[in-house]
């Protein structure tokens, strides 16, 4: 089956909005293609790998070299298109020799398992020649797919959830099972596709795989009408959600993004393997401040997550902890259908058993989450407000009778996040967006007053409506002071309310502060720039919190 079919699938999925139609298109594809191509299609569509063989910049340079195209012209085009792979695809149009399309029947499998891996083994000169050769012998319809795979930017509106639904419909097996099969590493092969569409459910083969995660919804007012005693209260940690699994002696650690991360946290895997029972725990991984018994900032965790086989000194410098808040399976018994309050009893029971029995003390790396017991809703609110003191983001509220289902199920778990911090800031720079926002100025930088000067303190790009974005884009074009490449400096005139989650000292920024998750929450057209906040206000905010 040819790559062309996959290109068509990509085009169809890209232009269909309805979920049912997408599923139909996917299933038609799966039914009419080889298992091996299907497995690659799933691999690509779900973003299992976004491995970058070459950068977008490299691709643009290469095109410029081969076809003697001015670099600045490609850059100008890029500003309009917002995606290197697509720019080059558009520029390649009608450029290539149509007579010798020897790659017109190449399959997705050949492309991904032979052609592209072979590229990375070549030296630069041969690699460039080979890419040129592929461009010129691959039918035009396939250029976008090829360029996107090369640059690792293959993204389309297909989620794991959609593939799950599609396969589930295809073979008529519950979504939970498919979702289970799709978790974690998915190596494209005939076997992996056939395993996915196997109509017989085999528990053994699912052994190391996590359960689909149950996610919390944003707090709803209606829950305050219920008795406080119906709920279990936990701190909402700002770490990485994970399932820690031990089955048949093997420990595996899975993120919610379905990655197996054993290699990043070997000390945890090692300690947990000494526990005699088998289990599946749901919890949070954090870098832990043992002295104060609170979590360190998320930025320290980032130093661990992307590092495989960390050295002993890294392990000491960034000590991790796994905080379990749920027990899903114990010694092969799936207890997700048991009520949360009873699962909690089991969790506590086993935790104390393990503490006594395990020779190798694990209290420095594993604990269960503490519960909070507010007397009434006002007190719950007080806890929430205090959450910044212990470096948490608020509360998680769980219905005591809830079973552990999957996805963002309504009406059982809620996150009650502490209100964001806010400052009013002045827009001073704008930069062209990429992808869907190409051609519009959508990346903004904001400043606060320091004496009579405006100092940049945060950049944000989310929070405005499409209509506001267009309106602001127009204003930006008319009020540009200077252009520096894609960036424009602007007349200070517009004030925006910027919300963020965390504020801390930073030596790397001119303002001396750094904020986390800054976003625009209001266009303050009612405010003049003199009404905007000062850096001093920001420092006060910081003091108030710590």
């Amino acid at each position, binding site marked *: 089956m040819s790559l062309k079919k996959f290109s068509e699938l990509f085009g169809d999925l890209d232009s269909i909005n309805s979920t049912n139609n997408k599923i139909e298109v996917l299933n038609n594809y799966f039914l009419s293609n080889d298992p091996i191509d299907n497995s690659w299609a799933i691999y690509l569509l779900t973003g299992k790998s976004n491995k970058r063989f070459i950068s977008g910049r490299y691709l643009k340079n290469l095109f410029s070299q081969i076809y003697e195209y001015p670099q600045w012209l490609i850059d100008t085009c890029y500003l309009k298109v917002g*995606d290197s792979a697509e720019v080059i695809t*558009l520029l390649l149009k009608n450029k290539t020799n149509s007579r010798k399309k020897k790659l017109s029947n190449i399959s997705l499998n050949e492309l991904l398992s032979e052609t592209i891996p072979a590229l990375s083994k070549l030296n630069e000169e041969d690699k460039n020649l080979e890419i040129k050769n592929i461009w010129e012998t691959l039918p035009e319809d396939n250029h976008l797919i090829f360029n996107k795979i090369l640059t690792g930017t293959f993204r389309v509106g297909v989620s794991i959830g959609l593939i799950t639904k599609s396969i589930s419909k295809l073979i008529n097996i519950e979504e939970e099972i498919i979702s289970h099969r799709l978790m974690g590493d998915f190596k494209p092969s005939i076997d992996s596709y056939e395993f996915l569409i196997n109509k017989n459910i085999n528990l053994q083969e699912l052994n190391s795989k996590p359960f689909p995660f149950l996610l919390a919804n944003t707090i709803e007012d209606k829950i305050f009408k219920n008795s406080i005693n119906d709920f279990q209260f936990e701190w909402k940690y700002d770490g990485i959600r994970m399932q820690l699994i031990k089955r048949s002696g093997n420990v595996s650690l899975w993120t919610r993004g379905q990655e197996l991360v054993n290699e990043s946290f070997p000390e945890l895997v090692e300690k947990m393997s000494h526990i005699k029972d088998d289990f599946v725990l749901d919890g949070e991984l954090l870098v832990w401040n043992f002295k104060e018994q609170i979590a360190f900032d998320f930025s320290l965790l980032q130093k661990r997550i992307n590092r495989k086989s960390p050295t002993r000194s890294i392990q000491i410098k960034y000590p991790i902890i796994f905080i379990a808040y749920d027990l899903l399976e114990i010694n092969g018994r799936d207890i997700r259908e048991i009520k949360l309050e009873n699962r909690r009893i089991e969790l506590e029971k086993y935790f104390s058993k393990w503490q006594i029995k395990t020779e190798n003390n694990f209290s420095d790396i594993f604990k269960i989450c503490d519960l909070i017991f507010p007397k009434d809703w006002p007190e719950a609110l007080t806890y929430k407000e205090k959450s910044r003191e212990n470096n948490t983001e608020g509360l998680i509220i769980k219905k005591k009778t809830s079973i552990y289902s999957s996805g963002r199920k309504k009406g059982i778990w809620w996150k009650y996040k502490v209100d964001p911090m806010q400052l009013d800031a002045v827009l001073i720079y704008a930069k062209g967006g990429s992808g869907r926002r190409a*051609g519009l100025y959508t990346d903004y930088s904001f400043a606060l007053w320091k004496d009579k000067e405006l100092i940049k303190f945060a950049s944000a790009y989310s929070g405005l409506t499409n209509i506001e974005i267009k309106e602001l884009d127009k204003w930006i074009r008319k009020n540009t002071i200077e252009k520096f490449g894609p960036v424009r400096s602007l007349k200070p005139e517009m004030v925006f309310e910027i919300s963020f989650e965390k504020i801390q000292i930073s030596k790397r920024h001119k303002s001396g502060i750094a904020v986390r998750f800054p976003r625009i929450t209001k266009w303050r057209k009612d405010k003049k720039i003199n009404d905007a906040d000062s850096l001093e206000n920001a420092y006060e905010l910081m003091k108030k919190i710590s």
Partner: protein
Amino acid sequence: MRTKQEYLIRYKDGNLYCELADIWIDPSKPVKKALITHAHFDHFTFGCEEYISTKETAILLKERVGDNIKIKTFEYGEEFKINGINISFHPSGHILGSSQIRFIFAEEKWLISGDFKLQKDQTCEQYEIVKTDYLISECTFGLPIFKWDESNKIANDISKWITNSPEKTSLLFCYSLGKAQRLLNEISQTNFKGNIYSHGSIHKMNNIYRELGIDIKDTIKIENKKKMDKLKGSLILLPPSLSKVSYLKNFKNIQTAFASGWMSIRALRKRSGYDKGFAISDHADWDGILEVVKKSEAKNVFFHHGDSEALSKYLVEKESINVLLFGK
């Protein structure tokens, strides 16, 4: 080098103006004398004392402005004189009646391209290469990422789009004058044989085209709102202004598409809010603009209607053509 004021044609109040003849080209404000390249709304205004255009443009213009306007018409290629300047219209291939306008004065030739395309279009005269010294060209799609496919390929894509979803009503949004008729003409040559409906504004233009001898397939005028939910499997042509929820909810089970050159870019397609985009344009693509610039043999080129920065730089660097800037 001459100052801007000394050019035969220059920008005045944001419009093209020839002082020697005291005549404006496609003015956006009422003036005494207006040369009109074609009948799109952004190329004429109400209230001019006198309009001058081709015969087809005059008919379309009257439909839009009113019967009582004073309008003088000339054939393509027919020269007429104003204050000693020879002026003539030449086909620009944009829509029915659309023209380039050439001025000759004291052996100096000026050409205003109007909106133009080189692609084949059975609903209007093919673009004519006109030699000139000075060229004033549009450059709506003045970047090399714009390269049009043959229009019959796009028509086949549209046909497939409709027939692949027989359960749906397919709404295709397009400009009511020119694009709609070109699409109808092309679609009637594809495998799609279902019913085609068109909105009143498009229907009206279809009729004028037909009266002027252009082969346009019969369409059913969308009138009865009550029946609009029973149109599955058919194609409906609508102007882009109707692409809003309040209108679309009259239909059941729809898929929407927009036919425009901008739809060749994925980000714009996504942002447009239509399910699908068909990249078909009545403007020249990058290669088309370059071809016209070269074949016109113009030594001096001005651009307007578009982002001309990259195009100008390219012509100066790569083709050594003198690109001038208008003082707006």
